[in-house]
């Protein structure tokens, strides 16, 4: 009984969520192109590829605009994304053009700890 109840709730939640996302997507079709772009920067350990718990400041065009593991909202376009010192990760920078992202589908960038 308990399992059935949870399953019903989960399936309802999934439908509700899907409906919400669809509604938002439909809404976004009619609204003007959003001005903001989104980036998610994560850190990984060198060989294992596992996530690193450490948090670092993320610099976009040398300005501190957020932290690793957090969604960063900014104006986007061509930019250079780096981590704040010390210089323990590679690549040293991501030279990217951030376009056509959304908060649900940010540009995901990874910095890997130097071995």
């Amino acid at each position, binding site marked *: 009984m308990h399992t059935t109840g949870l399953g019903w*709730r*989960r399936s309802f*939640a*999934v439908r*509700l*969520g899907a409906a*919400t*996302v669809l509604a*938002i997507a439909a809404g976004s079709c009619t609204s*003007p192109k*959003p*001005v*903001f772009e989104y980036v*998610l920067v994560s850190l990984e350990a060198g060989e294992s590829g596992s996530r690193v718990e450490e948090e670092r400041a993320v610099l*976009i*065009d*040398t*300005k*501190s*605009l*957020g*932290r690793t*593991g*957090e*969604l*960063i*909202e*900014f*104006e*986007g*376009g*061509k*930019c*250079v994304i780096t981590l704040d010192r010390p210089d323990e990760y590679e690549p040293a920078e991501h030279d990217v*053009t951030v*376009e056509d992202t959304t*908060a*649900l589908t*940010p540009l995901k960038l990874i910095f890997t700890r130097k071995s």
Partner: protein
Amino acid sequence: MTERAARGRGSVRRWLRRTAIAVMLLLIVLQIGAWLSSPRQENEPLPVHDPEGGYRFTTDDGAANRLFVCVTMSGGGTRAAAFSYGVLEELLNTEIEWPPDSGRRVSLLSEVDILSASSGGSFTAAYYGLFKQRTFTDFRERVLYRDITKDLFWRAMNPLRWPRLFRPDFSRSDLAAEYYQEKIFDGRRFSDLSRRPFVVINATNVAFGSGFSFSQSFFDYLGSNLATFPVGRAVAASSAFPLLLSPLTLRNHPPARGFDLPEDVKQALAGPQSKPRRYAQASRLAPYHLEKEGHPYLHLLDGALSDNLGLRYVIDSYLRGEIRTLLNRTPGGIDRLIVIVANAKGESDEDLDRDASPPGETDVSYKTATVSMDNYTFETLELMAEFLDQRRQTQEMLEAVNQWRREAGMPELSQLPMIESSLIEVSLEQISDLEERRALLSVPTTLTLPRDVVDELINKGRELLRRHGEFQELIDTLR
């Protein structure tokens, strides 16, 4: 008869000759006086660039930013100065509890972080930035009730000042700047202005038709030091309405040692394809650093021409400046962003429609100068509202998706730092009484108004803010 006529012609000729000699002598005296008189006050060069130094907004000054309040003040001569002063008075008298549940009662005015103003509003913003509390005891007498128009007229009529006006590098705006600096701002400079609120005086760059804010981050491009620049000159530039006053000129000095274009500007200059807004702003400032020979001077006119609300600085800061840095900062960033716009826009000339004959040259000239300004003002306000709405929607959407994912047993997506925002515009058009509204909307844009009109405008600024629905809601949550 003929003899008398000949005598008459002779005396006219003599009179003409004497007048011509007198005019020539006067011109020579003026020219010599012009050579001998002191030139206009130049903006000083900056020998060494300091990215944290000078009068610029810094995010690492130790100030608490959780509640971040921006107040913008529009153009409109003394009408705008008085109206925005009323808004300041109301903010002073609005008590809030901040931080929440701390028991600490503060005036909302003490929490203002940015005061950005154009034209008439810049008198109020600069005065408060310099004199803080004193503003509420002497600003009315020293500025709002003062007959600035008459004072400027007699200054220009004083023959002792004519030689300077004869100099090619001295204009009517320079005369106004000296008057403001001496009589209103007590000779103060930007280094005397408060850091919080950070005061932004906005003017218009004549060559590019773009906004120019008196902040060290703009002066860096000119290799110039804003700290030593007279506040009165900035206000004169911000309120130099075309035709009435001439543009005010800044010298573009050699670059300060160590200054290079900011990285985001370099990236933006790559082209307008991906982010045209970034490109547009970068390409109007970068030439003052990259092509100094082609731009040895920068001429400034009324800030209202490019941004009548003084809101552009806040928008740019929200998009890519200090506000953006603070929004994304966790912890210690902005929790609540409040933007209050004091809009003293006057009436549209609906009376023009009553006449069968087309409007005359004066009306057409005035309209030519202000039509696009009015439309742009409307769009600027809409833009700010749209940006704040987009943020609100994105936060809500992520929250809804994460709620769903939580219930579905899935890992949550990264959320944005949650902020609450309010955009509150107070304008004379919100006056509910029709007659009162018409009367105040028709107050002319001038630097001289009768005392009772000034008092009425101040009272309306206070009342409109106090009664504004969104302001009331905001204050209820902060009390």
